[in-house]
């Protein structure tokens, strides 16, 4: 029974499409548009991480990202662990944890699953499940353990940068980023653009959510069919597409009005009046900063040494 072609075909289709179909549903159910709002919101707290030198905070994700590329899988696991530990120190809100878990674990599962399906090692290949010809014509002969392991490694490398960036993002006032960029001699406009983007992204998400609600309140049918109502899904996709066109006008008008005011406020507050800006912040180096710089330094120097000695470095070619 299990070896019959129809059953194998059904299992194959389920294996290949289950993850891509489940992940968006999980995102919509657990996070949604309103949940995205909390993703980039700064959480003001008094933790050592919040007080860390902003320059180090800018360097940290860059450094960790580079290390995640350079190292072998096992060495990279150590780096990955180092990016996870500070989360326990930071103790973000439950709402933020919920969103973070979906936003980080979702792509991780997708990467892991995708590589398992499509990354093919040299023969002999060990298949966890081999697809029949009715599925294999789509390009994947089956799920391989080697591919999944490779996917896990690649995803973890990406997660190192994502995790570190999110850690920094929610523990740093954007003004501190601007300060750090200016210390690195970056133009003030870079800091301002980042400030405005991070400040208004949650507002924009709220507004998009509001306009989508408004279109439903006006009697536009946005109700989703049940998963098994296959004949209704094309119509739902069509309605969704049309709705995007409908909401564009109010969104565009609202955004233009908002940006005009914001530009006038920035002008009135003297933005661009001088080439160099002053700063309220006076950063006094603390023990935490010294530890932070030391860890980053050790990691970078360690990576260089290990690469030079051919230990822990990835093999290319």
């Amino acid at each position, binding site marked *: 029974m299990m070896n019959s072609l129809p059953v194998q075909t059904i299992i194959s289709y389920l294996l290949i499409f289950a993850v891509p179909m489940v992940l968006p549903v999980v995102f919509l159910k657990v996070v949604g548009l309103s949940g995205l709002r909390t993703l980039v*919101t*700064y*959480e*003001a707290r008094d933790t050592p991480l919040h007080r860390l030198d902003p320059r180090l905070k800018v360097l940290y994700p860059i450094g960790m990202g580079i290390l995640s590329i350079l190292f072998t899988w096992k060495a990279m696991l150590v780096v990955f662990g180092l990016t996870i530990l500070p989360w326990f120190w930071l103790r973000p*809100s*439950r*709402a933020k944890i919920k969103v973070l878990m979906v936003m980080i674990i979702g792509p991780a599962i997708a990467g892991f699953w995708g590589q398992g399906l499509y990354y093919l090692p040299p023969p002999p290949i060990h298949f966890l499940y081999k697809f029949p010809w009715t599925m294999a014509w789509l390009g994947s002969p089956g799920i391989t353990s080697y591919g999944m392991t490779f996917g896990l490694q690649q995803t973890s490398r990406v997660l190192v940068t994502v995790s570190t960036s999110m850690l920094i993002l929610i523990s740093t*006032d*954007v*003004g501190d980023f601007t300060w750090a960029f200016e210390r690195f001699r970056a133009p003030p406009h870079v800091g301002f653009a980042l*400030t*405005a983007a*991070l*400040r208004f992204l*949650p*507002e924009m998400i709220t507004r998009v959510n*509001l*306009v989508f*609600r*408004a*279109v*439903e*309140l*006006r*009697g*536009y*049918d*946005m*109700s989703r069919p049940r998963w098994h109502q296959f004949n209704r899904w094309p119509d739902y996709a069509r309605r969704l597409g049309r709705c995007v066109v*409908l*909401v564009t*006008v*109010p969104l565009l*008008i*609202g955004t233009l009005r*908002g940006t005009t*005011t*914001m*530009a*006038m*406020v*920035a*002008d*009135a*507050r*003297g*933005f*661009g*009046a*001088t080439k*160099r*800006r*002053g*700063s*309220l912040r*006076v950063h006094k180096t603390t023990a935490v900063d010294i530890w932070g710089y030391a860890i980053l330094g050790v990691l970078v120097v360690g990576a260089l040494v290990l690469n030079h000695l051919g230990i822990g470095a990835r093999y290319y070619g």
Partner: protein
Amino acid sequence: MTSAAPAGQLRAEDVSFAYVGAARAALRHVNLAVAPGEVVLITGASGCGKSTLALALCGLIPARVHGELRGRVMFGSAPLSGMKPHEASQLVGMVFQNPNLQLINQTVQSEVAFGPENLALPQPEIAARVDWCLDVTGMSGMRTAAVVTLSGGQKQRTAIAATLAMQPRILVLDEPLSDLDPVGAQEVLSTLQRLARHGGTGVVVIEHRVDEVAPWADRVVLMDDGRVVLDQPPRAAWAEPGPWRATGVGIPDMVRLAHAVPEAFGSRLPLSLQEATDAVKDTWFEAALAAAAAERRSGAGQPAGRRNGRAADAAPAVGGGPPVLSWDGVSVEFDGKRAVDDVTLAVNEGEWVALIGANGSGKSTLTGLTVGLGKPSAGVVRFRGQPVRPGKVFDHAAQVALLLQAADDMLFETTVRKELEFGFRFRARPKEPVLDVPEAVEFFGFTGREEDSPWELSQGGRQRLALAALLVGAPGVLVLDEPTTGQDANHMRSFLQLLDRVRARTGITIVTVTHDIRGLASRAARVVLLGEGQVRADGPTSQVFAMSGDLIRWGVLAPPLARLQSELLGPAAGDVLLEVDELASTVLAHRPAGARAISPGTGALRS
């Protein structure tokens, strides 16, 4: 053109301005002077040029807003019109209407420091300015707070602090109270008064809510069609109601009452509740008011809930019809916090109910549940006995029409006619429409404009259109979320009259969420007070507004007339009168026989 203004004085000299492509000038030959330490209230109907004047006074016209400018704006002997925005903003600061759009940074202190940092000031100077601005605006305790966590009043005070950090000599505020609850408004106004009285800052407040600003203002400027039609101290400005009636702009209730019963108030117009109370305390007015209240309590007067205004007259008595909407033990949680806490409430068929409360008290969350927006963590919401299913907005929007505060966000089509037809493209037309599309065009005043774009209508027109589009779907209940925010008295009056006509025509149940205690809430037959997510008071409007102490506790100020009666009579006020004309006729009808008429200029008559 006059000579240069005295040092520290802001002066508009024969200023006219037309926006690019506009057929008519937004400002026409405006002359205005603002001295240091002076509080000037500028008011006028929507579109009269107030906001344009604000932009000109702070130098953003012509620097950032383009058009044809004639005349000039001077600060002392310096021409402000020719300065760069950051130079002008160190003389005249501007606080815009929506604080959300002018807070660029993430925390309070970084927002306040933004301006001084841009001026490349030394760190000690920036720190000193931030400390002073936070102190003077009462925000010192929240300096590290994230902007997104602030209340409306706190955001507005942060915007004021950030503007003050540029150390302007004059502060111009464009409708700073429009999004604030009454308590938040008082926070902002007391901050402004502190700045003017103790800091010597000139303050220009552009505002429709004249009742709240009147006691603080040194001068009142009335604008109409781009011109200044009146510029006088408050008492002189409101001594003659003619110009105010002609422009359709509201007059403070205490002033209207003094005009209606001049023999009680004498020649000195009361601008505040305190002044009015002092004027009539222990006079025949108080005695007449007490006699009328006693009569009402004994049942000789009209029944409560059917007395205040036309809407109440048209509405059935409280509890008259069967429940159309009900919340049974409803709670809603966001991130572990209870926005709505165990609310049990019913709205009956044909009622007009106002939900009031401070910002964040759960009003909008509660009404959103009636169309499936949001999900209760406990309890059930019902429409005509049937549970409202969370998330099924399309299904419930046909039964309950919800008009959002930002009505512009509810318009999606290219013409007025298509906008009215919008809903019928997705669901069947109602079999028994209370208002079909051609009727709606006529009823809402769109005859001849059916093929116009909604964006060619005025703001009031767009709001009418959104309302009309909801009503052609024949809903059973109309829910209005802050429909009169930022509207002038004329517009508000028209909107309330429109609602009266809609009720008279359709008999529809109305639920309004509002901060507009004086206008919209007073119009309802029944008021529900929410505080921290719970129902704190529920009853006929005239009785709930008599509970001044309870209202203040939950962040709401009763209308000035209600507070006057509570101040004079205390608990004996019973259910209060909310219309000036009604109060005036009542006290005159109960005037003791021995009370003498007052001589002009002698103050209130003591009986």
